[in-house]
């Protein structure tokens, strides 16, 4: 059954068009801009709901635009892309609301929101990309549309962070591009979803394909912040909080992880991966990243930096799941973490942003007793943090549970051990924050306190983290419900491991 491919185009336009209009708006048209943003994201969510239902009912959506020989833009929606689009668009809505609140009274908002919308459009493009070229297309555009956001503040630090970001991501993009071109020459044009390239190629070009795999993973690994390609992420936390949320949860890092999924499952295909014996390599990198990220997070005093290292560690759970993809449960765990990590991390960044914006608190050592001043924010933060540790009934537990089961079914005890150790480390760097926030007495005035009247902070800043925190709990508690990320991931995995 075929649905119209224009639905995909519409989904992309629903953020692109507002973005373009916003670029043209004068700075003081706050209301119009906000309306545009919100309408865009609501429409997008509506369209994506339609898409999801359609996919569930077995419709296929695709649209092709051949460019030159062997190169075509191909958008298509499969369950996997639907997962990512849904995540991005929902989180986009929340992030937009948050950003509106966060950036009240700050300059250059038209730019900011314009790039913001572009960023999401491009992320959706990554999700809907139906072949490697289309993926690259949007993947590189993502780099570009996030750069202005990272350097939005225009301070020397943020410029340095932006430069670093570019060095890493453009370098990675170049590797990716190179490898993709080479692969295309070897295998011919190839759509995602075709279970990888023909197996006889593995016999003919085994070592070369392995090399290309390494290059491809290095390419997406930069965005997914795999160690040792993670250096940009902690620096990029200098950006405003909504941007961090975007980087860590909605778009960039996610796009990298999503890329890993695509490469393993759709470009190479599980069978080829197993024949080539490349999965352990990915496992190794992912475990290394998980541990390194956690260790580094332990040492940070800057809250957002700690969160950034935590992201490095957490995002590799996805890679870890994929690296055990021949085991159904691990694959489920990895994929579902794509969603879960996003929601949890965005909660944390929202909260960190609230602290910074309301009280000027950036460092953990300044957070003593902060929960008294901002209980709701810290409540949400707590939920997110507990989720990160992987405590039940949060979403984090669900992914960790499936990852653990998968690792066991793969008899990969190293991974099991790493999972345990990582949980411990996660607890070691999150629990002290919670303790100091909830149970310490505040000392002295806050660095830069603003008063927002009735609520502890602006309502637009407060609602998104509360909502996401609630979602973290909900999708954990209701993990086995009919409509949950987990259910959808099972549906995805049906396609790959019937």
């Amino acid at each position: 059954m075929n649905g119209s491919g224009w639905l995909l185009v519409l989904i992309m336009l629903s953020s692109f068009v507002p973005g373009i209009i916003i670029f043209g708006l004068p700075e003081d048209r706050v209301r119009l801009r906000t309306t545009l943003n919100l309408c865009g994201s609501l429409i997008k969510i509506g369209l994506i709901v339609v898409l999801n239902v359609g996919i569930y009912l077995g419709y296929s959506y695709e649209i092709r635009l051949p460019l030159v020989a062997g190169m075509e833009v191909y958008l298509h929606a499969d369950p996997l892309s639907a997962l990512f689009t849904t995540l991005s668009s929902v989180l986009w809505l929340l992030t937009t609301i948050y950003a509106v609140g966060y950036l009240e009274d700050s300059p250059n908002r038209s730019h900011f929101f314009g790039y913001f919308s572009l960023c999401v459009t491009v992320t959706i493009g990554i999700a809907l990309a139906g072949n490697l070229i289309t993926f690259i297309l949007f993947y590189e555009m993502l780099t570009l549309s996030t750069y202005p956001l990272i350097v939005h503040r225009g301070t020397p630090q943020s410029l340095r962070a932006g430069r670093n970001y570019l060095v890493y991501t453009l370098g990675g993009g170049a590797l990716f591009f190179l490898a993709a071109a080479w692969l295309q020459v070897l295998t011919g044009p190839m759509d995602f979803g075709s279970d990888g390239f023909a197996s006889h190629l593995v016999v003919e070009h085994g070592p070369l394909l392995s090399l290309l795999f390494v290059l491809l993973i290095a390419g997406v690994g930069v965005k997914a912040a795999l160690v040792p390609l993670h250096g940009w992420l902690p620096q990029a936390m200098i950006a405003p909080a909504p941007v961090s949320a975007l980087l860590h949860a909605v778009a960039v890092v996610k796009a990298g992880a999503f890329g890993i999924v695509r490469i393993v499952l759709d470009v190479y295909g599980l069978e080829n991966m197993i024949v080539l014996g490349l999965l352990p390599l990915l496992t190794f990198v992912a475990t290394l990243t998980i541990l390194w990220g956690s260790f580094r997070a332990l040492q940070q005093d800057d809250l957002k930096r700690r969160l950034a290292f935590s992201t490095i560690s957490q995002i590799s759970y996805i890679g870890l799941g994929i690296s055990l993809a021949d085991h159904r449960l691990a694959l489920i765990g990895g994929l579902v973490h794509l969603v879960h990590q996003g929601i949890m991390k965005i909660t944390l960044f929202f909260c960190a942003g609230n602290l910074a914006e309301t009280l000027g608190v950036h460092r953990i050592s300044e957070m003593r007793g902060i929960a008294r001043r901002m209980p709701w924010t810290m409540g949400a933060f707590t939920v997110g943090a507990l989720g990160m540790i992987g405590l039940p009934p949060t979403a984090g537990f669900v992914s960790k549970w499936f990852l653990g089961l998968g690792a066991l079914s793969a008899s990969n005890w190293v991974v099991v051990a790493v999972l345990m150790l990582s949980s411990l480390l996660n607890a070691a760097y999150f629990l002290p924050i919670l303790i100091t926030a909830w149970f310490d007495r505040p000392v002295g005035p806050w660095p830069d306190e603003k008063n927002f009247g009735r609520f502890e902070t602006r309502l637009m800043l407060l609602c998104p983290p509360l909502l996401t925190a609630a979602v973290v709990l909900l999708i954990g508690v209701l993990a086995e419900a009919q409509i949950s990320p987990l259910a959808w991931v099972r549906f995805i995995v049906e396609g790959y491991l019937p």
Partner: protein
Amino acid sequence: MMPSGLTLDMYLVILSLVAGVPLVLAASLSLPLSLSPRRILSPFFAWAPLPALLTVWLVPPDVVVEAPWFFMGGRMGLDSSGRVFLTLSAVVWLLAGFSASGQGLLGFLRPRFSAFYLTAMAGNFGLILAQELLGFYLFFALMSFAVYGLVIYDRHPGSRRAGRLYLVMVMLGEIAIFLALLLMSGEVVDLDGLAQSGWQNSLFLLMLFVGFGIKIGALPFHRWMIRVYREIPLPAAVALAGAMVNAGLLGWLRFLPLGQVAIPAAGLVLVTVGGLAALYGVVLGLRETRPAGILAGSSISQLGLMTIIFGVGISSPLAGGEALPVLLFFVVHHGLAKASLFLGLDALTRGRFCSFWWLVLFFIPALVLAGLPLSSGLAAKGALKGLLSALMPSWAGLAPFFLGLSSAATTLLMVHLLVRVREEVMAGRTPGQERRENLFPWPWISGVGLVIFAPWLWSVARSELLYSLALPGIIHGSWPILLGAFSYPVFARLRREQSPTRRQGRFWSELGPSCLTLLAVVRAWTDGLFRRVRRQWWTILRLAAQQLPGRERIFERWLTVGIAYTALCLLLLAVLGGA
């Protein structure tokens, strides 16, 4: 006594209420102070365990309610052992709640305490009702973490330290349980094959032991219990000692259902560890000076005894069937007694109830714990002795002696407790402690009443109790108590001679900082390395940056142009000539 005709959905509602009511009440605390629901609901906090009691009454044992949407597929129900645990917990929480609300701890004015208290309660009830392991784990975690908030409630440095230790232990326990869960769900281990040797099986058992052993203060993990009992507010201690620690035992029961597994080796280990704990707990208690610490030692010791029962129970399926009732009885006995002791301690330290009779009342549950004849203590010990002699023939001779010794030691401990309580209460009279409440301590009274009368309700216990009425029973029951009581002066002298200053837990408290130091060193080294490399790169690049634009001048010379041009011509002529 079960009202029938309730549909499954109604059971679902009822069962959900058990954990749901405390949670909702806790959630109501997050409402702004000005909102009326928060004030209105506040008096009901103490009544939060009521749905649990209701459930015990309403829900038949064979009912299992499925909630597939709930957290990886929830199943709730109330089996027979769960019923015992739930009843005990509900009662203890009720008593603790009244005690706490009586002194104003539980209510909307103390939102933090109340919230953690109610959450812990919800966790405790929920884990009992959960009929699958993940649900159990969920509520177990909920309870464990909520207790942290109670431990550091008063924010003294001591309670902070205790809280940190507690948290570390909880975290370790969580991970151990998680791994055990994984191993079980991943079908790496199965109950039938557990008896076989295999490192996966050993790992599984080890994880179970660690995970739940931490909760019951089993021997290597006992440290937190003393520190936490010392620091936690007493009403919370009631619930902790009376109800929550039992969750560890329930955990074992849930993972290794008695009567279905037979792991003799593990049984032996548990019996040994439990035996050691039973004695060492007393030693720990004797070292303490604060009553709550002494009670903690007693808990370690008593839970050691329960460990023995469980160890015996998993030795063989046959033993399991017999050990289960004993274990349950022991749990109830200990739970009620310990709860009463803490209630009494609470009442004594806070109120004016320091006359002799109040002290006697306080001492009753203590003696019950020590195994006073006609009390559940003696009944429990008798049952244990029967169990040991029946199932572990090699221990048969040793069991009475050991139990007697344990009983005597407990008595000694209890006397020590009484002395300490008296001193403390006297000391408490000194000016400075202004807040003295005048409420009649009826939760305590009812607790003691329960300790005395409840065992009679239970058919298993009744025969043992009746046996202790007979002379041999009395003799059997009394000599350890007398021994313990009379050895107190010796102990007191020894104690006086020994300086109480000790520093324990040094290793643990130092471990964290030293780890951090190590990390800092590693980090400094790596950072330095990076910086050095980066600096050198920059130097090279900067040199290049200074040099290269100058080099461009070469190309601007006409001579270079000439050479390049002619060379290019010749080169191309050469390479094209070959075509």
